[in-house]
């Protein structure tokens, strides 16, 4: 008999995990001097749904992000100096968030790999 392998998204806890993680993750982002300036003038009401969409994607969940969306959505930030170091910081904060939630290192590495896969689109190169 075949035991179905649970997907990363299901292992993490699906949409509930996204809802739990989003506040912890966004708090870390706003408190981190390296990346906080990029979020200074954005409305929290608009940011939370965007962060949820990002986490859903990074957790391997259903999403309709395209490379083009990623480029369009971050172009103005690239113009303000967004670079590899900031992407690294975000991936680091994402890892810390999951660690706090008790996610095993192997799953955190998978999430980091997914987040890393959109790096070139985000940085528009």
């Amino acid at each position, binding site marked *: 008999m075949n035991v179905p392998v649970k997907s990363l998204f299901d292992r993490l806890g699906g949409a509930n995990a996204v809802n739990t993680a*989003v*506040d912890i993750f*966004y*708090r870390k982002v*706003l*408190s981190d001097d390296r990346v906080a300036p990029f979020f200074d003038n954005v*409305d*929290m*009401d608009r940011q*939370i749904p965007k962060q949820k969409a990002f986490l859903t994607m990074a957790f391997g969940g259903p999403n309709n992000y395209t490379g083009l969306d990623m480029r369009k959505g971050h172009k103005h930030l690239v113009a303000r100096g967004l670079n590899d170091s900031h992407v690294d910081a975000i991936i680091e904060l994402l890892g810390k968030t999951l660690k706090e939630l008790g996610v095993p290192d192997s799953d955190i590495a998978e999430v980091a790999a997914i987040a890393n896969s959109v790096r070139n689109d985000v940085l528009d190169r």
Partner: protein
Amino acid sequence: MSAHIGYGNAQFEARSDESVLDCLTRNGVSVPHACRSGVCQSCLMHADEGQIPEAAQKDLQPAYKKQDMFLACQCRPEGDMRVSLPEHGLLDIHAIVSAKEMLNHNVMRVRLLTPTPYECEPGQYITLLNADGLARSYSVANNPDADHFIELHVRLFKDGAMSAFLAGANLGDSLIVRGPAGKCFYVAEGQRDYPLMLAGTGTGLAPLYGILRAALAQGHTGPIHLFHGVISEGDLYLDRALQDLAAQHSNLLYTPCVLNGTDGKGYFAGEIETAVMTAVPAEKDSARLFLCGAPEFVNGMRRKAFLAGLSSKHIFADPFLPAKPVAIAA
């Protein structure tokens, strides 16, 4: 790709990333508008033909959506559209000014009568339009369905367009009411025992007053803490009524905060942010926070409270965005 916008007998070409509102006003068409941020709904239009982008209907009531209405300021057309101004009377309500009273040196209480009791949640906002198409949003400070009138607290600005209009309005004058909209209102969930924090500056008290009375009327049992931030003592209003309310309800605490005040006068002398932050309850997961008034206060406070551990889904905010009129091309 640039889209064409048909209006009446004319046809205009929208610039890339230009909203329908900006395109029409650039071409000399007068469309009522105020916030240009998708909040006030004064730029409501009807799509006669063409696809309405999702963003242009995001927070609209289902009744508006069903009738192909959209917000012109949020509508960046994805293809050709034909648009028109909505016919008054279809969805708008005519109200008459039934009472006016100064609550302090620059805040005026305005009561409006509607043909049938107006249904909205205390704390939501409505947009008033006058016959000239001037539009501004105001928060509902009472429960109109029960009271049979709508109560607003209007701060009078020198050179304020709607301020001047309302200050000069006679009892019996008529206005159009559009809305309601907004997510700042009391919802009794489960136990009704969660801590409730209400903080507003200036006429940000209006929605909070509505929310407070709704919470008390619905038997909220958790602690309620109301903060009213003003610049000078004379800017406080409804102070007496709120002191009385707090005396009658053991779970209600009222803290007026006067920025330029002096200690020992029965209020908190200093910034409202400081007063709120020192009072954040231990039950951070369940506490609800409502923030209304000056946008700088609302957005700054929201961020501070969130970083202090309040849940993002429990912070409700209504920044009173000032109107951003665009010049109509000659």
